């Protein structure tokens, strides 16, 4: 049975990629999507069978990769990731059917998309260093092709792809180094070998491996300061691809950290987890801050991904810290919270990116300052975005809330310990969490309110049309899942607990209990999301009925009058007078001026006749990523300077090249001698 699953996933994916590249334009997307679905279905079946039983799927063959062979094992942790990825992939590929006509039906895209999905599905299966690295690289390359889809139309896409390529390969190099170091010291390249030997390694080796892996995987997960590629690539990738990248691929960054930190190395000293928490704190605040001040819809979503991964890292770090100081119950809760946050994030961020993609297709812009009024023009997309926004803002009764509640409970019950460093880092984490929460709410009120409500700020927005039916279906499916998981998180909690137990070596299988209300055994904390939502629904109904009943039929006027908005009686009132995303974020931006350091240009030109009359005022403000500006750009400039210096080495003269070879040979000989 094991072989059937794995072979189906791989073969269907491969076939989809081939057909996507070979078939004519009319049928290639449909064929690719259908086969990708087969692949996803098989993956889900495999994952469900692993999660519902105690044994793992394992398979190894030497037929595919020369020298090392392929080793595939799916444990409970991997299974959780596989399910999450396939859910997002199913929705995104369905959406792709409708999106394809907007520039995503090219041979390269139709071939890369199934390849991307399949490699993501298979990464959690990988159980040897070589297999893992090959699949990881496949995933990176396929997604790179997808980011490049729009490059002919937009310069920004090319630059984003460049950043992505460099960062992802730097990350891959770190991962490669970490895994190779590990396998060299452990004396075996399958994960099972490593796992048995890793605990006997010296602290220095383990620490080095951990830090390298954290850097490599952290960059994939968008942890600050390795995040710079993420807001570019996720924003520039076409709709379904950015949903897959933000909803599924970043998960694998976290998977990698758990894989190396918890599974392969089997946990570690306190400083590891403090480091993770620190990454998390910085990412969460930084991401939330930029999401709150960004006025590009998809860039905002991408920064929010960084923010959410920060929360996951905080939860992971807290779990490790609690485990290290001997508090298994809270460690388990924090681990479950981390995975729940991750799963929820995939669902709502997938929905949000799909909705944003639909907006981009309908209006041709992602600039919030040019959008508005889309809730009426694109009702389904609008509602999807609305639900996604409330979910990411962690508002009940949507799914984001449950994860944050669990995390708060874990931190609250874990906080009073005697270990000072734990107390301090957890307290800092709580403060960061709280700050992030408020900023995220502001960011998504802005995105929803400016983008979808009010009146359209440009012709494109006022003439937008609802997306194709498959696009709506794909996005709506994920939005529906947001609601379902918000009301009944117990649907996934058992699976998550099993995964957490397999990952964290903690007894997480009974971290939470209950069907209608969520109990934390051993601790006093209960949450009843469905009852809460039920009460809310009843209250809403009662209020609506009351409001309706106030209108008497004898009244000579209609119950509700649709009028021009009140503009203090002024004669001209246009949509441009509304607040824009930039103005909405201005107060927050001003509060955090010292952190973001936006650049502002105010250019006033006076009339020639008199300085007291102004001819034109130009105000320009931009808040590009401060880390990119302060660290990466100077670094790149430095590298470029050295590059320029090094050019004289290479002037095309054959003699000079031969001379280099000769000098090198001599040096080698001297060294050897």
């Amino acid at each position, binding site marked *: 049975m094991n072989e059937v699953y794995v072979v189906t996933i791989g073969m269907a994916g491969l076939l989809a990629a081939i057909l996507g590249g070979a078939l004519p334009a009319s049928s290639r997307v449909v064929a690719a999507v259908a086969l990708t679905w087969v692949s996803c279905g098989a993956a889900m079946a495999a994952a469900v069978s692993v999660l519902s039983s105690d044994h793992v799927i394992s398979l190894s063959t030497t037929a595919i990769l020369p020298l090392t062979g392929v080793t595939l094992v799916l444990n409970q942790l991997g299974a959780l990731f596989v399910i999450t990825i396939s859910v997002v992939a199913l929705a995104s590929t369905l959406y792709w059917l409708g999106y394809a006509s907007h520039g995503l039906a090219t041979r390269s895209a139709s071939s890369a998309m199934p390849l991307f999905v399949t490699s993501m599905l298979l990464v959690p299966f990988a159980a040897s260093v070589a297999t893992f690295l090959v699949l990881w690289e496949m995933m990176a390359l396929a997604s790179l092709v997808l980011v490049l889809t729009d490059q002919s139309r937009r310069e920004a896409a090319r630059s984003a792809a460049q950043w992505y390529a460099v960062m992802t390969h730097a990350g891959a190099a770190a991962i490669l180094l970490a895994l190779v170091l590990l396998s060299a010291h452990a004396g075996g390249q399958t994960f099972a070998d490593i796992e048995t030997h890793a605990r006997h390694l010296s602290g220095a080796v383990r620490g080095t491996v951990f830090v390298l892996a954290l850097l490599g995987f952290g960059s994939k997960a968008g942890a600050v300061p390795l995040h710079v590629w993420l807001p570019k690539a996720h924003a520039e990738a076409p709709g379904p691809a950015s949903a897959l990248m933000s909803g599924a691929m970043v998960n694998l960054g976290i998977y990698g950290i758990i894989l190396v930190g918890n599974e392969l190395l089997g946990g570690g000293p306190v400083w590891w987890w403090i480091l993770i928490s620190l990454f998390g704190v910085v990412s969460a605040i930084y991401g939330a801050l930029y999401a709150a001040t960004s006025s590009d819809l998809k860039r905002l979503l991408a920064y929010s991904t960084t923010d959410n991964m920060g929360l996951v890292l905080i939860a992971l770090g807290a779990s490790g810290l609690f485990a290290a100081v001997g508090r298994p119950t809270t460690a388990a809760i924090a681990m479950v919270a981390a995975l729940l946050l991750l799963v929820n994030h995939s669902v709502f961020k997938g929905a949000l990116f799909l909705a944003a993609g639909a907006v981009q297709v309908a209006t041709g812009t992602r600039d919030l300052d040019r959008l508005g009024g889309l809730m009426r023009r694109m009702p389904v997309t609008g509602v999807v975005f609305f639900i996604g926004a409330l979910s990411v803002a962690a508002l009940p009764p949507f799914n984001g809330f449950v994860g944050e509640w669990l995390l708060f409970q874990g931190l609250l019950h874990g906080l009073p310990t005697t270990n000072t460093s734990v107390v301090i880092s957890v307290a800092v984490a709580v403060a960061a969490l709280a700050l992030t929460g408020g900023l995220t709410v502001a960011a998504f009120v802005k995105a929803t309110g400016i983008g979808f409500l009010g009146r359209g700020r440009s012709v494109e927005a006022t003439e937008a049309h609802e997306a194709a039916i498959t696009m709506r279906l794909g996005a709506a499916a994920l939005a529906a899942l947001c609601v379902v998981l918000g009301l009944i998180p117990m649907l996934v909690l058992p699976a998550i607990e099993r995964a957490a137990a397999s990952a964290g070596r903690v007894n997480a299988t009974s971290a939470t209990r209950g069907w209608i209300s969520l109990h934390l055994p051993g601790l006093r904390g209960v949450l009843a999301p469905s009852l809460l939502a039920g009460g809310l629904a009843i209250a809403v109904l009662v209020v609506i009925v009351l409001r309706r009943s106030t209108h008497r039929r004898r009244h000579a*006027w209609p119950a509700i*009058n649709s*009028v*021009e908005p*009140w503009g*203090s*009686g002024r*004669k001209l009132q246009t949509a441009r007078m509304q607040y824009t995303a930039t103005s909405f974020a201005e107060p927050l931006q001003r509060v955090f001026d010292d952190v973001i350091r936006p650049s502002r240009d105010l250019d006033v030109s006076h009339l020639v006749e008199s300085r007291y009359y102004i001819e034109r005022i130009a105000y320009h403000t931009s808040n590009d990523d401060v880390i990119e500006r302060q660290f990466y750009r100077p670094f790149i400039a430095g590298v470029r300077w050295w590059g320029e210096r090094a050019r004289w080495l290479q002037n095309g003269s054959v003699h000079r090249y031969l001379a280099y070879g000769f000098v090198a040979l001599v040096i080698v000989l001297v060294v050897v001698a």
Partner: protein
Amino acid sequence: MSFRFLFQTLVHPRNVVKDLGDAPTPQHTTVALHGSLQIRHVDAGSCNGCELEVTSAFAPVYDAERFGVRLVASPRHADALLVTGPVTKNMAEPLRKTLEAMPEPRLVISLGDCAHDCGIFNGAYGVEGSVSDVVKVDVHIAGCPPRPEVIVEALRGLTGR
């Protein structure tokens, strides 16, 4: 500020014209206001004499608020539109818009002689006409400017208190 003063003002308000007589019989019975009247004030071109008296009617001495009358910031929140002055050409359109922006049931109160017949501004080049030329007036409060007692009296006639 002493606590004694604080207590005294809390219990016995001073400076107030206490007795403004019994509540007059309601003048306008078509609208059920139930003792609550929110007013949006529009100055359609007044000399500001009426504004002074309106301010005075809501200030401590006359305190129209104790009869359930309040000035509000948006016509959406208002039951009555209080217009002062002759309607100038520039204010005619905003006045209409303000009335349109009010929810039913709504009233228009014109205040002061100018609002009624343009007063000394009658026939001036910038004047469009009296308030009733622009919107339908329900209640008129006469005077140039009307005394605060008269204003309060008229408003009490509307709230019925």
